[in-house]
């Protein structure tokens, strides 16, 4: 009885979810086409391409901004991976004094709102001569993203079957071979999850990019924000769609890359 009701509810629920995701997207598309679609009107108003023309016009600098966004997000994610690997491994496997505290501290940057610490970060970066540079921005992006990477990898490490590593040694695999062929594939889901979060957070980071990059490092988020924030909703919508497209393509490539790695990690 209950389960039958459940079965009936599932399609309703799914449809609801899909609508919930699609309606805002449609609204965004219409908005970017200069037409608004408001209650009680059944159909959207007339459309124009002027917002898109502005966004793709070279003088608007969308392309370099897009490139900068990706460069920062991918580099930060790579650094995250390198930093988070040993940290996550220690957290997952060694029970030392203060482990809980370490875990908490590693999570803090994700919990504390950025505006609360951004002045401190800004000053430190000024002393370190890192402001207004891309490396500074990348470093600053580690703060909100690293916790997610550490978290994802810690879970991955905790669920690794180490007996397989032993097995690999017994079959003559050395440390690095064993890591690449046996450990890494087991970590991949965690790496994928962590990377996706890291990339998405970095791409949408506004405040740290603005303050640490000082406007010298222009990401798509920086360029689009004044429009989205009331300046010109139509151009804002076009930028948002461009942003979504960029994020989507990045995630898709990341996924394909990881899957390719997974299948190319085949032995022959």
């Amino acid at each position, binding site marked *: 009885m209950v389960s039958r009701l459940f079965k009936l509810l599932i399609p309703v629920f799914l449809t609801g979810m899909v609508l919930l995701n699609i309606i805002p997207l449609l609204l965004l598309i219409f908005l970017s086409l*200069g037409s*608004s679609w*408001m209650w009680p*009107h059944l159909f959207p*108003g*007339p459309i*124009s391409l*002027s*917002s898109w023309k*502005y966004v793709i016009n070279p*003088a*608007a*600098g969308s392309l370099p901004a897009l490139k900068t966004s990706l460069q920062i997000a991918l580099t930060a994610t790579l650094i995250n991976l390198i*930093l*988070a690997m*040993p*940290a996550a*491994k*220690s*957290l997952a496997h*060694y029970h*030392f004094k203060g482990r809980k505290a*370490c875990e908490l*501290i*590693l999570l*803090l940057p994700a919990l504390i709102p950025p505006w609360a*610490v951004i*002045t*401190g*970060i*800004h*000053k*430190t*970066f*000024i*002393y370190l001569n890192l*402001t*207004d540079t891309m490396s500074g921005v990348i470093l600053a992006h*580690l*703060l909100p993203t*690293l916790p997610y990477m*550490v978290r994802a990898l810690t879970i991955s490490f905790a669920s690794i079957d180490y007996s397989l590593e032993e097995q690999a040694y017994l079959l003559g695999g050395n440390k690095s071979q064993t890591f690449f062929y046996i450990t890494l594939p087991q970590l991949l889901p965690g790496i994928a999850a962590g990377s996706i979060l890291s990339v998405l957070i970095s791409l949408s980071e506004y405040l740290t990019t*603005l*303050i640490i990059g*000082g*406007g*010298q490092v*222009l990401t798509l988020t*920086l*360029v689009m*924000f*004044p*429009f989205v*924030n*009331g*300046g*010109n*909703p*139509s*151009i804002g919508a076009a930028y948002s769609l461009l942003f979504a497209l960029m994020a989507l393509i990045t995630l898709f490539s990341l996924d394909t890359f990881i899957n390719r790695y997974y299948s190319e990690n085949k032995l022959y």
Partner: protein
Amino acid sequence: MFKKILALFLTLGLLTAPLAGCRQTASLSPDKELLQADFSQIQKEARGQTVAIYMWGGDESVNRYMDEWVAPRVEKELGIKLKRVPINDAREMINKLLTEKEAGKTKGSIDIMWINGENFKLAKDNDLLWGPFVDKLPNYNRYIDGEDYQIKYDFGEDTEGLEAPWGKAQFVFIYDSNKIASPPDTVEALKAWIKDNPGRFTYPAPPDFTGSAFIRQILAGVSSNYDRYLTASLDRESLETEITPLWDYLNQIKPYLWQKGITYPENIAKLNELYAQGEVYMTMSYNPNYADNMIKQGRFPATTRTFVLKNGSLANTHYLAIPFNAPHKAGAMAVIDYLLSFEAQLAKFDPANWGDGLAISLAKLSPEEKEKLKQIKPGKAALSPEELEKYKLPELSGAYVDIIEEGWFNHVAKN
């Protein structure tokens, strides 16, 4: 294992380092020599520099004017690369400069910033500006009337040569001539019209910039002695009591507003949408050419027109300033000078580009220049410069803006 724990602590260190930023103040010596130098020498030094101009980036026409009109010319004529940095809120620049000043960063990244009002006051009060420099600029001296109240005072604050006027904006109302034959021309007539057309008028809730300006616009209309508010002399309480007529006016129209005044559009974009949909018959803007731009983009009906109130129409000037730690001060001066040239001002004035009001004084133009100016016709939805000029009123003191916005919540929104 120890290596791993070491790595873990390194990571921790990295994450906590930013919290440790400590205070340190450095004394800054402004580039005094540059202020003594000959302008041709400044221009020579400026050649080859990349000048970063930080400005609000949310308007297509403004961005286009800078990217497509100004930047190529500055590069060709002055040998300066102009880099426009879009920002969301001028306050972000001020905060950045405040931190940089505290941390003793003498070489910043902003060369020019576009500000006015409270942000200028903040910058001035905190010594974030370099100068005074405006009288070093040949075009300032040639075209600007530095003694004009609307130029010398920025929301009541003396500019003291720390910022150069770049353009002017004026508050206008926008209506659909198809629905309103003759628009009201005083605040009283506006009130009557609103009562006659319930649900067809509203204004954005402060702190929206335009909504806040609308309230000040009404204040200018209902107060007998508006000049009294140009400089801040009253405390919060006395001001709030003294402007009771403003609260009365807004409360009287409230039941006749869109949604019976229960809710207000959260920003000007929402109001414009309501207008575009025909829900309301009027909207407003601090840009006199806004209606014309929107018609051109096909967003507003072609029958849209502009009007101002004869009680006075608020105007403000927006400025360009150079921060204390601008890395390319010579380049900044050269660019600002260029932006004050007749050609740059004329192009900016042209509704085909931006349609912004002139900062240069009409009286200082040569006959040929006056002729060129005449060639530029305002759009059919916009008012002529003369008409705008006729009812122009300066903005009240910046110190009052916040008080009035908060007062609106207590005296109007809450009722």
